[in-house]
């Protein structure tokens, strides 16, 4: 069964399917119900499932995220929606000290089958308190998994993969993708958590990326191909665990690596990927690895400033050029 739908619809359909299939699944968060969902993802679900399973919460990120953990420990399969990643800072105590630690700290007794979805990323001119990309930063935390759907297929699959996982999974959706259309195949088994996906084969350089940056990488690859540079583009899909095998395989193939991520540069997931390649495939490298991240600034409102703070296809192309010169 294949159909063309939007990324938003894909997330919604996955939630619907899960709620139909499993009475333990419910959705909880700010404005998921009566408002219709901050980005309209959950539009219509309140009517379909009722207020017992589509819970509008008060503004209390720590409280309802923690409630999600407790409900998960007590037999439910909650989906907690945090509107925007900057607000998730209010829930970090619950995420790190409880969700991520519970199973290990209890000696294996209490797992936390919780899904936390949130919006991430800049580009909407929302300023310094609504625009950051912290998914790579969250990937530092052992005990949780981090998924970053880029495609319509993954927007759907990842909700279900996350729900099927016995441990806490954070899914980061980029609102700029919600209107993107794509093919959804619900018949084939999804690519598991922890597996990257090659979006474009290439021989000269590998561009590793995830989320919305994948499309910028693909755009850059097109430009590069017109210049005769054949770039491979890999969608990492999951930031914790990372698909080391796929990464190293591509390093051994192209010997040049550029990583693109929308997080701030210092301490980015790009740095971690560089560290791993250094550790696992150092002698395969023909040139220093490169990264295109966001400028290390609280994101500004003005469009020209914000756009210049973010990774762009032109910067990716320029970084590849530089790398080709260096090797």
């Amino acid at each position, binding site marked *: 069964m294949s159909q063309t739908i939007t990324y938003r619809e894909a997330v919604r359909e996955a939630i619907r399917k899960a709620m139909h299939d499993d009475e333990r699944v419910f959705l909880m968060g700010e*404005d998921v119900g009566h408002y219709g969902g901050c980005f309209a993802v959950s539009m219509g679900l309140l009517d379909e499932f009722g207020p017992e399973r589509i819970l509008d919460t008060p503004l209390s990120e720590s409280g309802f995220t923690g409630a999600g953990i407790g409900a998960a420990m007590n037999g439910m399969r909650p989906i907690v929606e945090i509107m925007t990643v900057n607000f998730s800072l209010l829930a970090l105590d619950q995420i790190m000290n409880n969700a991520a630690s519970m199973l290990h700290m209890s000696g294996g007794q209490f797992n936390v089958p919780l899904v936390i979805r949130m919006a991430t990323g800049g580009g909407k001119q929302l300023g310094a308190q609504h625009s950051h990309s912290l998914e790579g930063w969250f990937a530092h935390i052992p005990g949780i998994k981090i998924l970053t759907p880029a495609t319509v297929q993954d927007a759907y699959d990842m909700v279900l993969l996350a729900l099927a996982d016995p441990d806490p999974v954070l899914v980061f959706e980029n609102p700029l993708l919600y209107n993107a259309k794509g093919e959804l195949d619900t018949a084939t088994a999804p690519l598991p958590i922890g597996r990257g996906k090659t979006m474009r084969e290439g021989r000269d350089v590998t561009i590793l990326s995830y989320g919305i940056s994948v499309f910028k990488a693909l755009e850059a690859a097109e430009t590069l191909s017109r210049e005769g540079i054949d770039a491979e583009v890999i969608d990492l899909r999951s930031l914790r665990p990372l698909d080391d095998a796929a990464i190293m395989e591509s390093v051994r193939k192209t010997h040049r690596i550029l990583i693109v991520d929308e997080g701030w540069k210092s301490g980015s997931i790009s740095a971690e990927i560089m560290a791993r390649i250094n550790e696992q495939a150092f002698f395969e490298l023909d040139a220093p690895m490169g990264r295109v991240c966001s400028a290390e600034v609280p994101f500004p*409102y*003005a469009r*020209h400033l914000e756009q210049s703070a973010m990774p762009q296809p032109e910067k990716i192309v320029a970084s590849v050029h530089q790398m080709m010169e260096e090797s």
Partner: protein
Amino acid sequence: MASDWAQEREWYRQMVLIRRFEEKCVELYSYEKIRGFLHLYIGQEAVAVGVMNALAAEDGVLASYREHGHALARGVSAKSIMAEMYGKLEGCSRGRGGSMHLFDASSRFYGGSAIVAGGLPLAVGMALADKMMKRNRVTVAFFGDGAVAEGEFHESLNLAALWQLPILFVCENNLYAMGTALRYTESETNLASKAAAYRLSAHQVDGMDIIGVAKAATEAVAAIRAGNGPVFLECLTYRFRAHSMFDAELYREKSEVETWKHKDPLLVLQKRLEESGQWEKIGADGIEKEVAAIIAEAVEFAENGTLEPLEDLEKFVYSPEVSA
């Protein structure tokens, strides 16, 4: 009160300024001159204007992302606010903040905060500093009914009451946090009585009636300045427009909005003035003209503004080096 019509003219003028300014913003948003989130204050004008009226220049003000009205009432110029929303260097935050992050040091306007309740601990700290330094200043924090559920609200109220800080909490209860009605977010929907549990002085006032708001705020500020500790003022109000520009308003009935429009703060003040025979003196037409000129000037200023150079993107991540 009724004798002082100059005062009331000024209130009316400020409320009209906010109203027309925001109406203009909607227009400019549709032309894509303004981007990002745009939260309108229309319907709630009496709160900002009434409360600011009670403040002195040295007092400090913090507000939320719905703060055009507060900024204007505090005296931040319409020009610099409009330029801010255009993303121009001449904006009150250099174009970096936009609608949600208006800042203005000269009028001690400390933002413009887009994390709900996130400004409250800051307000506590500002008041703490004043108390420590024995400055006779008041800090005012504006926030919505939705903020009351947040842990930061709780921690802030407790600290303020515990340390008896010179702070005025103004809760603008417009019945909704985005699309979630107060009854779905608070087990106790009387927010003033909830606040009173922190052992601070807490009052409820009709937020559509500027005379009442101004009176309550004046009394509150006087009590605070006298050293009697913090005050919580719940202003019962309503926003006439959608939460932001992306809101289908599925969560409330049109009739509810219409009912509240009968309590439009502009109308309420007009009626009050008509009753006391002062409405004519106010010169509403003149005010509209005056305001239209201010707004036109603001738009022109914003249009002619410049963009911050890209090289300056990283400026002010840290303070500029000061030569020792």
